């Protein structure tokens, strides 16, 4: 799911790729196929659930500030995707 990738990539610009990957994995909704930050598979079939869990994971780091970063990505993402 492209939106999930964009959220992870945006978070990696803030906290670095290692921590962004770790938090994404710990959300339980993605698994990474290689060391590249955008080479991931979303394991949660429900789109809204996946995004909610991912945001919830990043929220543990900077609180609402992390949520706002994720929301900004969602707002900019084309609706049709």
């Amino acid at each position, binding site marked *: 799911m492209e939106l999930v990738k964009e959220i992870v990539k945006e978070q990696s610009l803030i*906290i670095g790729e290692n921590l962004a990957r770790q938090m994404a994995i710990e959300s339980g909704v993605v698994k990474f196929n290689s060391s590249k930050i955008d080479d991931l598979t979303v394991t949660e079939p429900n789109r809204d659930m996946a995004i909610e869990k991912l945001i919830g994971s990043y929220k*543990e780091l900077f*609180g609402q*500030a992390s949520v*706002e970063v994720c929301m900004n990505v969602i707002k900019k993402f084309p609706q049709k995707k």
Partner: protein
Amino acid sequence: MNKRIAFSALSIVLFLFYFIWWLYLKQFVPEPYTALNDYYADTYGIMAGVGGLIGLVVATKYGFLKSYVGKAITFFSLGLISQFLGQLSYTILFYVYDIENAYPAFGEVFFLATIPFYIFGLWFIGKASGVSVSLIGFKNRISAVLLPLAMIGASYSLFLRNYDSQDLPFNIVFLDYVYPIGQAIFFSLALLIFYLTNNILGGVMRSRVLFILFSLLFQYIADSLFIFETRAETWYPGGPSDLMFVISYFLMTMALIRFENIEDELRKRREANVSN
């Protein structure tokens, strides 16, 4: 032994060493210009150098210069290293070239560099902490302009209002203006970040960011005290401002080390949530 424990132990040992040394000077050395005082003033910068190197190691965890947090930690670390190099420069001038009272000398380049390094560090920690979101509001945008101006005005009033630059060479006048104003800028940025992110910054990073801001308060106090003592001609090696610098370097080091153990705290929080 993990890195955080090793770094913390090293920093605490160094701090205690210089703190106890300072107490000894205060209690048992009545004359302020002994060799022991000089050695203190010439070496406490090691606290900053070690702290800076530790910080650079911690920054690699966040991708070094590839992320906002990595950049922030890197720039704060470079600020600490600059403080160390500044002191080292004067130490070399004194002990190797036998030049006393060399101010202003090449070492000032390093001390001056601390200011933009800390400003960049604050810029990036602010971006990571949600300052951009807070600046959407008009009131906050006004604060972002007024607070630094107010601090610069206060610094000017405290340190430069009755300043007489007559007969002083340009380089000294330049430094006498730049230091208090530059310090006011980085300190006002720290206050601004605290104000702008107070309602939005949370999670495990909140305490870490606040600790950095708190350590910069001590740096500002140390710098201001040094300027006061110098202007009043009451500064002496191993005096109060030197202790304040030791404390500020120690606090900044410990603040940077706290970014090393994010995973431990996340795990503890999750375990606490599960058991609740």
